[in-house]
């Protein structure tokens, strides 16, 4: 009788609730707690460090791609740098909200393109009032050797000019494609169907190729 009333500690120890609570303590949490205990830092400080680490890692990995993206939207070097900084600030603010629902890469490109669009909407208005400075020195530092290098720089400048001349949506798709994202990833970022992406890309690629081969002359034969 007494045995029936007394709790079976062995069974309780193996109860699903206890197991569940064990399962809910993943490794990173234990490490964070350990780090807090060791460094005696506040949770806010630990979160700030995690944010900084993720931001630095993203920048190490994607800074060249983000700078290329900025060059696809802004013509003037100062505008490019400004846009890049805006994107960096946007990423810094978004890092704590990253939940891993999308891949890190598509998440980053979504933020970068969205900021680039809203920023270029504002910049277009400002630039209408200012005299535009033509930026002919697009690629300082592309040094392969001799004539080959000059030709390459010329081609790059033509490609960049052709991309900047595209409508915003085409530009976004082609920039993502040139960065090596596949149709599924572009769909995830843009919300367009893969069929629409495919048809747009084939048209835009053709016009870009023609633009480069014809030395910056569009289909109408006019110099851009």
């Amino acid at each position, binding site marked *: 009788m007494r045995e029936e009333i007394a709790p079976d500690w062995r069974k309780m120890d193996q109860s699903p609730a206890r197991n569940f609570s064990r399962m809910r303590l993943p490794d990173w949490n234990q490490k964070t707690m350990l780090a807090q205990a060791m460094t005696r830092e506040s949770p806010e400080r630990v979160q700030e460090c995690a944010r900084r680490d993720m931001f630095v890692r993203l920048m190490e990995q994607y800074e060249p791609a983000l*700078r*290329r993206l900025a060059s696809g939207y802004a013509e003037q070097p100062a505008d490019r740098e400004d846009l890049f900084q805006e994107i960096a600030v946007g990423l810094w603010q*978004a890092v704590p909200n990253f939940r891993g629902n999308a891949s890190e890469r598509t*998440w980053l490109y979504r933020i970068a393109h*969205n*900021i680039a669009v809203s920023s270029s909407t504002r910049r277009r208005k400002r630039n209408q009032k200012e005299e535009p400075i033509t930026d002919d020195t697009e690629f300082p530092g592309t040094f392969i050797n001799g004539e080959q290098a000059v030709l390459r720089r010329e081609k*790059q400048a033509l490609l960049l000019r052709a991309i900047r001349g595209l409508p915003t949506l085409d530009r976004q798709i082609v920039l993502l494609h040139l960065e090596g994202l596949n149709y599924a990833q572009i769909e995830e970022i*843009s*919300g367009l169907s893969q069929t*629409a992406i495919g048809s747009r890309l084939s048209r835009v690629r053709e016009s870009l190729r023609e633009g480069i081969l014809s030395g910056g002359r569009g289909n109408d034969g006019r110099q851009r």
Partner: protein
Amino acid sequence: MMDVNDELSELWCSQPCASAATKEDLVRMVEKRTRQFDRFILVRNVLESISAFAVTVIFAAMAARAPDVLQRAGLLIVAASGLWIIAFLLRYRRASFPADPSQELSCYRRALVERYDREIRLLKSVKYWYLLPPWIGLLTGSAGVILHAFRNGRLGWHDFIAPLIYTAFFTGVWWLNEVYGVAHLQAERARVLTIAGDHAEHL
């Protein structure tokens, strides 16, 4: 022969994009810009609250010394409208969030357009929540002054100058918000819409 896609991608990705800044510099830059923005918002809110509070205190003190009921009522309405405006603004700002840039491109555009619509609605309603309460208060106070002067037999054209001046001032503020401000926002909204429309066509 090299594939066209590969050639374009290779050409694109081989652009030199070296940055002079180190990653630590970048972190410092984003922290600085974020801090500057937060400080700007804080300073703006504090300044607006202080001005609203100052308007309330000044007009409440004037109401305490007002010689008749109508003037006192008018000045008290102006004092209360200072508090009402700042409460309205703080509530509005708390309820409005910037568009989240981690959304899909099409959703982000829609969010941007909605945000512009909200701002436009706010500016179009300026006459009701921002201008009308203090204007009614000032008008009531002026009516009290005119009535007081009339009773004392000292009513002159100069008693009508103040209502004309503040009505002209309020009209100017209304024009700046509802005509100039709304036109500016509508132009920006149209620019976003051209992108959004372009996008919607192909969904």
